[in-house]
């Protein structure tokens, strides 16, 4: 059971990484928890809103404005998504 949970966590983690990679147009390998908003030219405010749209769509949620503003890194994004019952 634990193994399956771990597997599912890993799947979701990879799904979110892939969304980031696709939207930002950078390789998946470049995305880790420490990747910060505005730290690379690809992750500017326009891309940030495109990311929100992609996350909203993929997980069928509507992320709140406060959380959009708070989403300052990939790690933080994962933390915020858990609030919306995206299991990690």
């Amino acid at each position, binding site marked *: 059971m634990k193994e399956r949970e771990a597997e599912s966590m890993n799947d979701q983690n990879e799904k979110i990484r892939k969304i980031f990679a696709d939207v930002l147009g950078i390789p998946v390998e470049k995305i880790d928890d420490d990747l910060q908003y505005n730290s690379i030219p690809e992750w500017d405010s*326009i891309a940030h*809103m495109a990311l929100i*749209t992609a996350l*909203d*769509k993929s997980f*069928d949620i*509507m992320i709140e*404005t406060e959380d959009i503003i708070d989403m300052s890194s990939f790690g933080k994004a994962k933390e915020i998504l858990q609030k919306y019952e995206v299991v990690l």
Partner: protein
Amino acid sequence: MKTMEGKIVWVTGASRGIGRATALMFAKEGATLILNAREEGHLKEIDAQVKEVSGNAPVLLGYDVSDPVKVKDSFHLIHKKFKKLDVMVNNAGILEDSLLGMLSPELVTKIFSTNVFSVIYHMQYASRLMAKDGTGSIINVSSIIGRLGNEGQVAYGASKAAVIGATLSAAKELAPAGIRVNAIAPGFIDTDMVKQLSREKYDQRLASIKMKRLGSPEEVGKVIFFLASDAASYVTGQVIGIDGGMLV
């Protein structure tokens, strides 16, 4: 097939005047409506009228459009229910006159909260729902006073000019997401708002209209409908006057 079948259309300030006429127009074309008024009870009449012309029962939402928490909660509800939004008509507004020297900070705040902040909050969330599908149309109701100004309407005129600024900026920002944003600027329209005027003011305004008559709420609704429809699929960032050639 009706042109708005399957479309979800949200109209604020839908209990009377321009909002009501607009809602009915969309209902006749098969849209599913979300109707707002300050009190849900105020929507009874329009609810019955919509049901009469359309098979789709509207969603009635009683909330203050200037309350950001209420706006957010309403959008979460609609997200859960429909998962999408096609048209947002930001119509709710108040008209209060005051000469500049007598204008209280409370009144300025009240007018801006209802006429401007509400439009920004609704555009913010509406655009989120629309962006998922890469399509949508937002129509904001400004006023001829926001373009030309009028004595006794510094706060109201400023608020309606702000609606135009918000519209033009949002149009640029949201165009890449496939969302069109336009404003209309009605002149002297036959609604409850104009009934507040004195006879003298009423006659004065009427005399300033080249077409020599008031506009009807339906004539405004028709332009809103056009901007929401596929007929306007390449129209964004525009402010359309609906004023019969009025000179303020």
